[in-house]
């Protein structure tokens, strides 16, 4: 009996210890390094597997490109050279996982900055980034809620999506007509868009049909929802979700004989959509300006480098471009602040860093100021209208304030 | 005194009658047997008494109390236990655990007693163990108590099934072919076990094919055929009853193959 119990005891505690070992392993895993000041880890947690994987990958490419270029140019923080290093973790789009990842990046990899490309995740991370552990969130989402949270260590990169609603509505109305059908995706973000478009459209004096939003991710055949939307005989349709499904919806609508104009949510990129459907199906629609249409000093080189990295076929999107800019800004802010491990200082230094950033990093509408709440503002924000002969014409956008 | 009173009991499955106008009195302290060819409705009768099936006609009353529509749980709690034709034990458990399971119906203590370790809980647990051991010993299989049910010989399993039933402290025990599958030479001992039940205050209603055994055991015998009463009486009468002989021999013939 005793012999049994002893061996048993050993076994069970062994099993238990295994847990502890695993833990310490993670604790040490990838850790260290950054302390010496020569390497600084930029953390990234995003959807690298599961439904959002493609999106997460696009962001990641932008980060990698920026870090490669910055290291090539050399970053120098108060006197000594610094190498940036990207450490990315997969959160499968789950906010709580994202927060755990961020915590891990901050604790083990001493990352002063963690990039996250999704509103839910950012909200979860904001619970932990300014308290017992401190790190700056480089937030890639156009949901103003995350700056409304008044988190001292958040930098919001893209423009507030609410800015688009008004211009989109007017443009679409003049090329289409007064009756709008809603066919956006059933995601958090899609629904917020739908709402703001609704308001803007009725403000501009248009009529709105029923809300036919569907979950682009789970619908196996778009024909149904489209037929339903068209049955209301709209002059314009609001669509948008990931580029490719959005493209399919527009194609289906054209197939079913829709002649009017499209309002395309910023998540979908017209040029990326052109890779899965004929450009004809996309004409007469207003959306965000493709990266390739920007005329910023760095854009051309950026496009070349992107093609080398991701292949000719892949279309560079603002997820990639804006995060490329974002890291450049942060690196400059580190230099300006003279520190790589004090998030507050880095955050403060951003505004003085902005004008300092090298032109090569200005690729997709570069910001010239950062608001109190931490929102990067691009002075001349532009959207685009894809006209009947497949040309992108620019549409200047007036930016709205982030406050509720 | 009449323990179980069955009146004009009937059960229809779809079109056909499994049991039809069967009436039977089981006297306290007696052993009553039900015999009949296969598909004569013996097991159905058991299931009706036990509450597995709901009768479509007639009434059953136990100790003067109507139990025609009571659930198995209520029947068992009321004092009627049963065993199955095919030995039915919890195979991966030891015999003791099996018999202890029979105590569940007599356990009052609930989760909270268990969690807060109340005196009631302690009292009950030890009572349960004693009763279970007693039942095992009574059935003469105590020495196997730690063997897995699947590892012991047929006869021990059969006896354990009885012990498990006894653990529920029944006043009436329904035995469905208790000696089925037991080698002839052991049926005698097994018969003795059954015969000793009434002294324990447990009346018995059993279905059995082994005629020799029945004739030696039963005080009263009910003969069923096609779900209906063919004859009722003491062993002697039954043996001499021509209908019975016809029906029964007929059926034993088909049982051979």
């Amino acid at each position, binding site marked *: 009996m005793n012999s049994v119990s002893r061996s048993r005891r050993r076994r069970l505690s062994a099993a238990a210890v295994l847990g502890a070992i695993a833990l310490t392993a993670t604790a040490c895993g990838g850790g260290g390094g950054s302390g010496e000041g020569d390497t600084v880890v930029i953390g990234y947690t995003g959807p*690298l*597997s*599961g*439904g959002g*994987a*493609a999106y*997460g*990958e696009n962001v990641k490419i932008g980060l990698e490109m920026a870090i490669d270029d910055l290291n090539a140019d050399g970053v120098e923080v108060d006197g000594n050279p610094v190498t940036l290093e990207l450490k990315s973790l997969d959160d499968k789009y789950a906010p709580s996982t994202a927060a755990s990842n961020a915590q891990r990046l901050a604790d083990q990899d001493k990352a002063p900055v963690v990039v996250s490309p999704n509103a839910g995740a950012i909200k979860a991370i904001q619970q932990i980034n300014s308290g017992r552990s401190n790190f700056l969130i480089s937030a890639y989402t156009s949901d103003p809620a995350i700056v409304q949270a008044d988190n001292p260590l958040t930098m919001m990169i893209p423009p507030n999506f609410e800015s688009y609603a008004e211009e989109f509505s007017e443009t679409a109305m003049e090329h289409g007509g007064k009756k709008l059908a809603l066919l956006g995706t*059933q995601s958090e973000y899609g629904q917020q868009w739908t709402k703001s478009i609704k308001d803007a459209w009725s403000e501009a004096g248009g009529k709105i049909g*029923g*809300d*036919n*939003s*569907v*979950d682009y*991710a*789970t*619908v*196996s*055949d*778009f*024909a*149904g*929802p489209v*037929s*339903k939307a068209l*049955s*209301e*005989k709209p002059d314009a349709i609001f669509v948008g979700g*990931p*580029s*490719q*499904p959005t493209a*399919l919806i527009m194609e289906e609508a054209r*197939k*079913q*004989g829709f002649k009017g104009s499209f309002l395309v949510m910023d998540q979908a990129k017209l040029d990326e959509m052109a*890779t*899965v*459907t004929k450009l004809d199906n996309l004409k007469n629609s207003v959306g965000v300006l493709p990266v390739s249409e920007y005329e910023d000093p760095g854009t051309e080189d950026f496009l070349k480098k992107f093609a080398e990295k991701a292949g000719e076929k*892949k279309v560079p999107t603002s997820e990639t471009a804006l995060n490329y800019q974002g890291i450049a800004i942060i690196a400059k802010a580190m230099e300006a602040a003279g520190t790589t491990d004090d998030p507050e200082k880095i955050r403060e230094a951003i505004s003085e860093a902005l004008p300092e950033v090298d032109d090569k990093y200005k690729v997709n509408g570069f910001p010239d100021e950062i608001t109190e709440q931490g929102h990067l503002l691009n002075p001349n924000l532009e959207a685009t209208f894809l006209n009947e002969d497949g040309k992108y014409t620019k549409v200047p956008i007036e930016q709205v304030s982030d406050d509720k | 005194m009449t323990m179980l009173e069955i009146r004009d009991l009937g059960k229809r499955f779809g079109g056909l009658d499994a049991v039809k106008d069967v009436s039977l009195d089981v006297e306290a302290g007696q052993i009553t047997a039900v015999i009949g060819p296969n598909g004569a409705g013996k097991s159905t009768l058991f299931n009706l008494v036990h509450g597995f099936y709901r009768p479509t006609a007639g009434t059953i009353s136990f100790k003067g109390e109507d139990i025609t529509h009571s659930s198995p749980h209520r029947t068992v709690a009321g004092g009627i236990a049963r065993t199955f034709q095919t030995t039915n034990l919890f195979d991966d458990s030891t015999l003791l655990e099996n018999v202890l399971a029979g105590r569940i119906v007599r356990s009052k203590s609930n989760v909270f007693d268990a969690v807060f370790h109340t005196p009631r809980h302690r009292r009950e647990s030890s009572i349960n163990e004693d009763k279970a051991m007693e039942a095992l010993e009574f059935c003469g299989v105590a020495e196997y108590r730690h063997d897995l049910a699947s590892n012991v010989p047929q006869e021990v399993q059969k006896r354990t099934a009885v012990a498990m039933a006894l653990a529920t402290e029944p006043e009436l025990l329904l035995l469905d072919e208790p000696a089925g599958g037991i080698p002839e030479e052991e049926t005698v001992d097994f018969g003795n076990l059954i015969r000793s039940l009434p002294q324990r205050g447990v009346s018995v209603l059993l279905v059995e094919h082994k005629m020799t055994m029945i004739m030696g055991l039963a005080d009263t015998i009910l003969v069923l055929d096609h779900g209906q009463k063919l004859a009722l009486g003491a062993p002697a009468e039954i043996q001499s009853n021509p209908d019975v002989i016809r029906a029964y021999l007929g059926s034993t013939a088909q049982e051979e193959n």
Partner: protein
Amino acid sequence: MRLTRAALMPAEDPTIMTLFIQQLFNGLALGGVYCLAAIGLTLVFGVLRIPNLAHGALYMLGAYITYFFLTTVGVPYIAAIGIAAIMLFIVGVGLERLVFHPLRNSPHTHHMIAAVGAMFFFQALAQAIWGADFRRMDTPITGELRILGAEISAQRIVIIVTAVIVLALLALFIKRSIHGQTIEAIEQDRVGASLVGINPSMVSMLTLGLSALLATIAAGLVAPINLLSPTMGDALNLKVFAIIILGGLGSLPGAIVGGFALAIAETMTATYISSAVGEAVAFIVLVAVLAIKPNGLFTKAVQR
């Protein structure tokens, strides 16, 4: 509010008839896909008694392999589907050998988790090979048909027709061919089957292979009207389970009726009530039906 609007719409809307026809065909096409996927799953259940949660992953894999042969290798559409179907048949057999066969005596909890593990693996694999990006699969079948004023794309007609043909062939296979009969035999009675000398593990392999094959055909058909992504199977998975449970586990007619019924219910509720309800309807129906008929509509002698 949305409800009332939907309720009024028919009255106001002149194209109500067209819309209905349109949606009916969309529903039928969707139903065809659901059936093909569900049949395989229900067969697997009938024979192996396991809810194969990896079915959606097989469907996804089938789509990608079809895509590979069609786009990358450049064989004709039908051939691509054919080749993919055969390859998936092999994958299915492998899955049975490596995962389900070792578990044949374990409770279904184990199967489910093992299947989930396999699913994770397949998805990660697909992403590793083809990347996370959505892929579009072009089909030679183009153009629309006008039916009572409704625009129906040829692809959808093809889906419906193929589904019917495949189902017919399957029925024939099961009734006529030895293998088919053994499958049916085992479905009805494992023990009996093994007594008359049928080799269950042989049949198990066959069945899983067959289910993967059917899933691939479904995927190959639907891929052109949707997109490929490593997670494309997820949405389908739950629905297909709802279908086979609704129809009664292991029942082929159940799966067919359930498939079309749920598909049409889905499109119609999405049209006349709301897309959110459309998404949930499969499960609401399921809960409702099982609440009344705990063993599904076409219960077979599946349960012990």
